[in-house]
């Protein structure tokens, strides 16, 4: 049986593609049949990834989640920073400056405000719970933005894997909260026209959450919210490991 393990490890990346595909397929099914699409499949899949990593950690006492299990070492490649950053950069395709202009000053203003306020309140919260180093604070503040900005920032500033895991968790919770909560509060925050949808997308930015939440509120608003939300992750990846991290470092020193 040994040759099977060797084979799986040698083709680790392909095994990772296969297993991730199975996770996503299952998550889509759960989203459709259990939550009637109220929670997007992507959020469930990411959450499932974290849960699997937890059990793998308990089982192996290792630090690399399911990559510590025999045959699944390829996950380290697939989920590593190179593929991740490459895929994130590719999502910028299709964004045009004409669209940014159309969004107007308020859209841009809400983007900056959204990233800065979310980052600061996340970092402040982490600080109040006993975390003091600028690297971890920045990572958790960034994770409060989205589950992508957190790990990108964490890798860039050199935070530990458990802090990065917390930042992903925070981002996933935000995505789920926005998805479920948007239709419930839409009335109270005036979310009924394209411009307020743009402000909404800019302030919250978690693309899957904003898109799913707006779809459940009023499908016509989706493109407007998504328009600003798509810039949020990019802006977060730009600001969090740089200006905002320096500000934190200056304060903690």
């Amino acid at each position, binding site marked *: 049986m040994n040759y099977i393990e060797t084979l799986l490890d040698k083709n680790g990346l392909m095994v990772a*593609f296969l297993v*991730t595909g199975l*996770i996503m397929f299952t998550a889509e099914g759960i989203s459709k049949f259990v939550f009637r699409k109220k929670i997007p499949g992507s959020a469930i899949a*990411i959450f499932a*990834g*974290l849960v699997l*990593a*937890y059990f793998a950690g*308990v089982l192996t006492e290792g630090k*690399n*989640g399911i*990559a510590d299990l025999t045959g699944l070492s390829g*996950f380290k490649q*697939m*989920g*590593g920073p190179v593929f991740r*950053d490459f*895929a994130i*950069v590719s999502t*910028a*395709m*299709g*964004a*045009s*400056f004409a669209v940014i202009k159309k969004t*107007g000053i*308020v859209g841009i203003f809400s983007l900056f405000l959204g990233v800065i*306020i979310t980052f600061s309140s996340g970092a402040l*919260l*982490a600080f109040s*719970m006993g*975390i003091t180093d600028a690297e971890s604070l920045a990572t*958790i503040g960034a994770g*409060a933005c989205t*589950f992508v900005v957190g790990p*990108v920032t964490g*890798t860039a500033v050199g935070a*530990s894997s*458990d*802090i*990065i*895991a*917390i*930042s992903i*968790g*925070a981002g996933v*919770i*935000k995505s789920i*909260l926005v998805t479920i909560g948007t239709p419930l*509060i839409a009335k109270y*925050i*005036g979310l009924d026209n394209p*411009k*307020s949808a743009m402000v909404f997308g800019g*302030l919250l930015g978690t693309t899957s959450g904003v898109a799913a939440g707006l779809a459940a509120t009023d499908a016509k608003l989706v493109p407007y919210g998504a328009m600003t939300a798509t810039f949020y992750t990019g802006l977060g*990846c*730009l600001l969090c*490991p*740089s200006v905002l991290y320096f500000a934190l*470092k200056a304060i903690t020193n």
Partner: protein
Amino acid sequence: MLLRGVALLAGCFIAGQLLGETLGRLMDIEANVGGVGFAMLFLILAQNELEKRNLFHVEMGEGILFWSKMYIPIIVAMSAIQNVRVAFTNGMLAVLAGIIPVIICLSLMPLLANKNQR
């Protein structure tokens, strides 16, 4: 053509990472300063510029689109390799950091949206 798109993406990626690392060096810190963000900016600039000159082929876009569709699966794989067991002791922090900033941002929503309507 397909690979030209992937090559364009890779070029922007390397340039952005290089700029981020260089900035980190210049500021004397062990960090990549906004590399991913810069790479995204480069890609937007390059694509807009190429489209203006009618040089951005549909197939080039498809080469990049493949990777942008791989984005969520890769994020799933990434979350599966984190040290969640240790993070679990701080699970409350993840929950609060996911909820409280959203509430703060939402409370600002009426202010911004109203200002906008006029």
